């Protein structure tokens, strides 16, 4: 019987078992949707928050507005002044309102006497979502103070510019599109996660699981080249890993379609990019499957294998995410690091940046070489019969 035939026989059995395993199916078919779903949710929230600030304007509750009619009139130019709740501090603490301006009764008297007029700005710094409203209120109050000071100086014959040595103009170039783009940095991370989680149950079941159920011994007693046995198990894991990867990538491609068009940004993720991402990820699938089968075969038992592989998954996923958030060009040597190189190249594709064939080729070659090395090491241990008796 040929090598290829034994490979096919074992591979077919791994697929049948995998398809009948609920855990393997959930990992390959259900989990991959989490990444795109999470991204869609976050993009939706970004679009909602930006709409509130841009279109609806800021609601500014003011308590004691009768004490400062001029100030209130000024505030109304920049925000919608609304009546304040009865208990301003309590309301802010409970998150009912983002900010409250409290004008005390002695405001007018202090103002007329030329003393600093007291105004209380109630905010909750621990709630990030209240920060834009608080900043807007603070900005309006400061503008009014500057205007009033200028008027006083003019009355006294001093040009207001004398006390304004600096004219700082702040230009915030962030747009909903750019904020959304930073979220795209998570896509390569989720792709790597999918590569691992998709194949993990099959990889464990085919090695540590078989040993725990004691079905590995009859398999070792069968006339199969051990290399065909190992590689068939890796191939089985690869199929489920690829399924998860495909689903995650397609999910991310669908995300922009599911969101309102007025979000105003375009993800560079169409069918052509999808195809390139899948092609780039294939070496990752092979390396991840080789790693998982090798480590799971050496694990003491099923549970130990699960623990080891869950940790293994984080190692390649996390640094890629960190790099993805950076905007600087990474040094070329990083492209040769398996998993990291792929994540960098995919990030470039998503940002519509140019990717040279050298970068893509280097990362694919490095990952394939690593996969071959790991597989060869696994074949050697299987040929010594180790996975069978190491437990």
């Amino acid at each position, binding site marked *: 019987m040929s090598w290829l035939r034994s490979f096919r026989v074992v591979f077919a*059995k791994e697929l049948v078992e995998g398809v*009948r395993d609920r855990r393997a199916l959930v990992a390959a078919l259900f989990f991959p949707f989490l990444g795109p779903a999470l991204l869609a949710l976050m993009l939706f929230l970004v679009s909602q928050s930006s709409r509130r600030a841009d279109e609806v304007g800021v609601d500014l509750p003011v308590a004691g507005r009768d004490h400062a009619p001029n100030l209130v009139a000024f505030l109304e130019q920049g925000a919608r002044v609304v009546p304040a709740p009865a208990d301003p501090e309590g309301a802010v603490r409970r998150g009912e309102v983002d900010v409250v301006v409290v004008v005390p009764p002695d405001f007018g008297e202090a103002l007329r006497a030329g003393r600093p007029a007291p105004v209380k700005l109630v905010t909750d710094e621990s709630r990030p979502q209240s920060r834009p409203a608080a900043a807007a209120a603070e900005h309006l109050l400061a503008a009014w103070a500057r205007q009033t000071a200028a008027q006083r100086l003019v009355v006294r014959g001093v040009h207001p510019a004398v006390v304004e040595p600096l004219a700082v103009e702040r230009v915030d170039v962030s747009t909903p599109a750019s904020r959304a783009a930073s979220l795209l940095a998570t896509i390569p991370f989720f792709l790597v996660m999918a590569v691992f989680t998709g194949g993990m149950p099959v990889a464990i079941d085919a090695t540590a699981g078989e040993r725990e159920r*004691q079905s590995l011994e009859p398999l070792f007693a069968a*006339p199969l080249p051990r290399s065909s046995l190992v590689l068939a198990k890796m191939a089985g894991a690869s199929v489920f890993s690829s399924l998860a990867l495909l689903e995650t990538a397609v999910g991310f491609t669908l995300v922009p379609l599911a969101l309102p068009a007025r979000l105003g940004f375009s993800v560079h993720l169409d069918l052509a990019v999808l195809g390139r991402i899948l092609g780039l990820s294939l070496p990752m699938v092979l390396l991840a499957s080789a790693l998982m089968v090798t480590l799971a075969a050496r694990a003491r038992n099923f549970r130990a294998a699960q623990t080891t592989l869950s940790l293994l998954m984080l190692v390649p996923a996390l640094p890629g995410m960190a790099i993805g958030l950076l905007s600087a060009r990474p040094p070329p040597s990083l492209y040769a690091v398996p998993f990291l190189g792929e994540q960098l190249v995919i990030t470039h594709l998503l940002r519509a940046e140019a990717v040279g064939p050298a970068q893509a080729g280097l990362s694919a070659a490095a990952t394939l070489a690593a996969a071959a090395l790991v597989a060869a090491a696994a074949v050697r241990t299987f040929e010594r019969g180790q996975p069978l008796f190491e437990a």
Partner: protein
Amino acid sequence: MIELHDVAKAFGEVVALRGVTFSVPDGQITGLLGPNGAGKTTALRVVYGVLRPDRGRVLVNGIDLGSDRLSAQRRLGVLPHAQGLYTRLTAREHILYFGAMHGMGGSGLERRADELVRLLGMQDFADRRTEGFSQGQKVKVALARALVHDPENVVLDEPTNGLDVAATRQVRALLRELKGAGRCILFSSHVMQEVSALCDRVVVIARGQVVAEGTPDDLRQKTGRESLEDAFVAAIGSEEGLS
């Protein structure tokens, strides 16, 4: 025909086999008898090629297992100590899987599977997944997959372990049938009645060495004891690990 020549195997400090030599002829049932921990399972694992001996060699029909494992294993049907099954495959799928591993396929394999299902009385559960099978059902599935390629040599590690009387009798009948067909059968046991009921030849192993060999009658004569059990105790020099 299975031959062991001076087979030795140690696991770290623990020496399991200290140079074991014996042969298993065709058309006979040979029992490997010994107390627990004597090295029976290790010896069988070396015979069916999942353990590499530190020294010595194993010949299956004259084929050296150390240099041509695949050819030797093709001529072996193996029932290991633990009958590990795939819980998500049916009994019949087990037979087909192992048949395919032995290069069988198509309608020939289907027919052979049907034949084994009938032979072992598996009709009621042949197409059920093996999850929750009784010990007897598991042994039958394991036997069926071991015999799917109609091997010339059959190696069984304590095949009747955990079986009830009816299933034990079925297994014994099957072994006699294989013997009738001229097969070479090697099985291990630490149960005296089993050995005396079945075996044409006995190889007694203790502390990793062959301490006696021959027909049950030979054994009784050599040790000068009436019953095989007494002969066995005399051969191994203690009653430890017997049942």
